[in-house]
């Protein structure tokens, strides 16, 4: 599904990501962990195609096609989707209007979908304006439900969200990733940034990676890596690998 080769990325005039390699197969969900400021969000924004993230080296292949030079909407149209950690507020643009715009010709029942994630009362509100942490995430999930991407990136889906909302968001993310389907039939892939691991209860991830200072340093079983980090902190976890 996604193949990243020797990718280096500048933000401003600073190189933030250095020589990243990562491959995510069809039906697989990977987890990305790492300390604050290590470059996790940068990687997701680069895969999505945001213009302030400048690729200086390497390639991104999506479904076998080189998308390195494509704009965000071309990648979105090919099936890349993302839940933002801090999406912008758009003054005046109602959530409902945005959903209609992104659903395009698809005959989605927006109010019905909105009910599922308890966002039906937000359709007439300006997008993200005054939304709480949980409301932002629910709005992001709702947008993704309409967009229905083949490859879903989630940037800290559980941060700032209470337990009840984590379960609601987690279940719907599970739906986006076709976790209800048998592994053989599952086509959708994901890349999830998490610190807490709560989300793992809903998505049973296949692989984990740890990012540090703009490099992916460690790969393995996501639950084991998480346990290691929670017991000993990132510092020791990463030292163990560099030996």
């Amino acid at each position, binding site marked *: 599904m996604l193949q990243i080769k020797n990718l280096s990325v500048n933000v401003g005039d600073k190189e933030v990501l250095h020589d990243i390699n990562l491959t995510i197969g069809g039906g697989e969900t990977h987890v990305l962990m790492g300390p604050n400021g290590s470059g996790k969000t940068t990687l997701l924004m680069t895969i*999505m*195609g*945001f*213009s*302030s993230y400048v690729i200086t080296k390497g390639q991104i292949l999506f479904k076998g096609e080189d998308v390195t030079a494509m*704009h*965000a*909407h071309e990648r*979105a*149209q090919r099936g890349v*989707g*993302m839940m*933002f950690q801090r*999406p*912008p507020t*758009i*003054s*005046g*643009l*109602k959530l409902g*209007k*945005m959903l209609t*715009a*992104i659903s*395009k010709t698809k005959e989605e029942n927006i109010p019905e979908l909105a009910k599922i994630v308890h966002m039906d009362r937000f359709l007439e509100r*300006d997008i993200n304006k005054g939304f709480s942490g949980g409301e932002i995430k629910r709005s992001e999930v709702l*947008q993704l439900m309409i*967009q229905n991407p083949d490859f879903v990136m989630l940037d800290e889906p559980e941060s700032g969200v209470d337990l009840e909302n984590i379960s609601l968001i987690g279940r719907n993310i599970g739906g986006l990733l076709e976790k209800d389907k048998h592994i053989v039939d599952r086509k959708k892939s994901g890349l999830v940034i998490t610190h807490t691991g709560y989300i793992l209860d809903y998505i049973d991830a296949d692989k984990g990676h740890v990012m540090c200072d703009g490099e992916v340093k460690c790969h393995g079983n996501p639950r084991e890596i998480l346990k290691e980090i929670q017991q000993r902190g990132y510092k020791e976890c990463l030292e163990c690998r560099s030996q």
Partner: protein
Amino acid sequence: MQEPVKTPGLSSTDKERLSQAGIDLEMKNRCGSYLQMDQDMVHAACDESGIEVLPYKKAIEKYSWLQDYAWKAVSPDKDDITKYVAAQEDPRGYVIIAHKGSKNVLPIQTCLFLGRDKIQHAHNIIIAEEGAELHIISGCASGSHVGKGGAHYGISEFYIKKDAKISFTMIHYWGEDIEVQPRSASIVEENGVFLSNYVCMQPVKKIQMYPTATLTGANSLARFSSIVISLPGSHMDLGSRAILEAPGASAELITRAITKGGTIISRGHIRGNVAGTRGHLECKGLILKDGIIYAIPEIEGSVVGTELSHEAAVGKLAKDEIEYLMARGLDEDEATATIIRGFLDVKISGLPEALQRQIDASIDVAEKSGF
């Protein structure tokens, strides 16, 4: 059901221009109509009981008490425009009277169309008597063949009596050679409500206006909303003013301005003269192509207990907002249009559905042509 308005000699292009200014010649969603082409009154009628739509001269003949209203809200000596109109021996324009307790659900439309003449003048008086509710849509347009030097001078005086309400929605569809200088003022009495909405999405050479609402009655309310786009060659000097003179009076002045190369001067002035008054002024401007948006908000309080505020911002479209929508699959143009559409989306509370739809429709037209 009203008869369609007959407009002999009007080309289909000009009919289309009228329709884009909100004029429904079929009269399907209107309860009354006044149509003036150049200086000729073509049509004046209203079938809502208790509401009269009359040509100015006929009204003055019919009701001598109108002398107490003519030139009382607007001074004839105010400027060259008012002097010009006041000096006319043969005054044109309309008078709309909503008698005590009357109410229209479907709006009345008034249309001033500049077809051939150089200067069109009109003097309008609009009165909502005690407890009445009056909704008007005013479409002003010029024909596609009016050449250089066309000008429109319109005087409008609004009187909102105790517990009455007037909404006045004005949609302009001029040409790039036309100069427009309306002069209007309103007087709002106890518990009265005055909603004034202005939409101009099309080119105009010059427009200059600064309507004033004087809130003389306790708990009266005035709300001005303007939605404008200024194209290259257009000079728009737009303002609105509210003078709060009674306890509980409040005013809200809202502007959304976009320049695509033209000039917009957005003025606003709220004066709080007595305690217990409130006012808010909000101007948001978006510069899509180099042009000028000059916001001049003024708030002036002279007593303890008046609360006035303003908020003005001028900027460009934010790249992160555009890319957020692009990440959902919209291309750059679609994302831009969606954000601009949201920017212009001012919902006006208290406005009948039909009028809000009309405002939305004129924005739709601008959106379809790519803003």
